[in-house]
């Protein structure tokens, strides 16, 4: 009896953890995209990047609200976003890297969008109804995101010499961060076994094939560099995240007990 209770508790903790991770991925990337506002190459892109940012921020809110509901401690979405320290955020590193130039942002979006296409399709099959619902909404959004990042990859890769060079540099710089997104730890393994979480390793080859096809069409080269940086899911972050959180959390933390 007590064993079963404790295992219940653990699996709930696992689920909360998993939901927070998905929320962190969405929030941090959404935040980075929101930095583009008033800085895009033309107005239409300001709007489009804002749309994508809004989708991600919206997704993070769904995740955090679900985590709040699961934890049942009276927490709110904002508690998770604004009161956790840098070491508690568990987003994949690729999401926290600075926005860089437009090529860098597009290359990251391409990698993430193709990833999400497969990830969310799999999450749609989750035995957890809320996660499946979040996935259903996310799939629609991802179709739009991926169309954009694919088209921009073609334009920039097959545009001018400069745009080609910038795009290739961005791809090379980001490549080392695309490995950890297919890996998982024991927490996620237990949830995968339970039919709740997604095993991204299952579609890694497909991801590579999809990305390679788009890059080839864009006259860009798939890197064969061997480096890989890991640690997001353990809260082991680059120096960029704490600076992002400094900005994001300041007002909230500067006025404790305030409502906004």
């Amino acid at each position, binding site marked *: 009896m007590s064993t079963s209770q404790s295992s219940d508790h653990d699996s709930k903790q696992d689920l909360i953890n998993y939901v927070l991770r998905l929320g962190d991925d969405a929030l941090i990337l959404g935040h980075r995209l929101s930095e583009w*506002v*008033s*800085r895009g190459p033309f107005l239409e892109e300001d709007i489009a990047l*804002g749309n994508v940012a809004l989708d991600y*921020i919206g997704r993070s*809110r769904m995740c955090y609200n679900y985590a709040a509901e699961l934890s049942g401690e009276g927490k709110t979405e904002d508690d998770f976003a604004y009161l956790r320290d840098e070491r508690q955020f568990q987003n994949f590193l690729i999401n926290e890297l600075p926005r860089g130039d437009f090529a860098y942002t597009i290359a990251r979006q391409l990698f993430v969008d193709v990833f999400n296409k497969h990830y969310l399709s799999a999450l749609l099959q989750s035995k957890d109804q809320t996660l499946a619902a979040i996935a259903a909404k996310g799939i629609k959004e991802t179709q739009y995101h991926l169309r954009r990042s694919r088209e921009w990859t073609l334009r*920039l890769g097959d545009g001018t010499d400069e*745009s080609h060079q910038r795009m290739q540099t961005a791809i090379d710089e980001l490549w080392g961060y695309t490995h950890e997104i297919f890996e998982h730890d024991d927490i996620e393994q237990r949830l995968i076994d339970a039919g709740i979480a997604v095993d991204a390793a299952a579609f890694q080859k497909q991801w590579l094939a999809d990305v390679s096809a788009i890059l080839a069409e864009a006259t860009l080269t798939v890197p064969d560099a061997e480096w890989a940086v890991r640690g997001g899911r353990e809260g082991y972050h680059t120096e960029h995240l704490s600076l992002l959180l400094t900005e994001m959390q300041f*007002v909230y933390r500067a006025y404790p007990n305030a409502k906004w």
Partner: protein
Amino acid sequence: MSTEDQIEDINALEQKFQARIDAEQKIEPKDWMPDAYRKNLIRQISQHAHSEVIGMQPEGNWITRAPSLRRKAVLLAKVQDEAGHGLYLYSATETLGISRAELIAALQDGSAKYASIFNYPTQTWGDVGAIGWLVDGAAICNQVSLQRTSYGPYARGMIRICKEESFHQRQGYQIMIELAHGTPEQKQMAQDSLNRFYWPSLMMFGPHDSESAHSARSMQWKIKRETNDDLRQKFIDQTVPQIEYLGLEHPDKDLKWNEERGHYDSGEIDWEEFQNVINGNGHCNRQRIQHHVKAHEEGAWVRDAQNAYDQKRRARKASTAA
């Protein structure tokens, strides 16, 4: 045709044009219009467009620091709407025979203006609320009257824009309500933002009618539908109960209800300060344009790539077709 005939011809056209306007008919892009009407409209609509675009900056300054996820999303969507309005208004201006590139160049070299209110800095989160409430509020007073402006594309743009703006104004006021009814620090933040943005908002309506340069002809052409002072009065009157509801002090110590006029009498506006900011002494005049130029220049290679790609694609299509 002799010169005399030509002049007579133009006079006739102008009379017909004015008659259409008097009859509240809309002027459309392909219609004949006096050159001065066209120029005036380009000036007015592009200034409006530039204001939307430059206006993204002061509020955009707080997107990454918005103190709740909901506020963050709402603010981001709002600033995005401003980009949309800018786009929409640039398109309306383009129907008058000028390109977006020319409009942007005029903004950047200072020959075109934007609303001077955006030269004021956003110092605190409260300013995001105050801008939504007061600045958008003032803009709406103006824009509502422009829904009936004589130029078709502009009037239709205003109808669409007004809807979104009133949404923004409510959101700004919501921020103020949270602050004014929040902790003492928050209430102080709200009062401070109100104090700083109230007077500049009044100045958004422009100089008093007696001092306004373009007004008479613009009214005749129905590019303007109400005078600066009338619109300003409307705004002053509607703002009083809003400030009361917030429980904040009114920044105008001379404000007084005038039973006879059925309006509030207002304290004197510091026009010197207004001119001061317009003339380049605001906190952000340089910053706003430099920010815009920087983003535009950093985006040049992207626009070039897009053009190059489109050309390549067209060339490929042509060669396949051949």
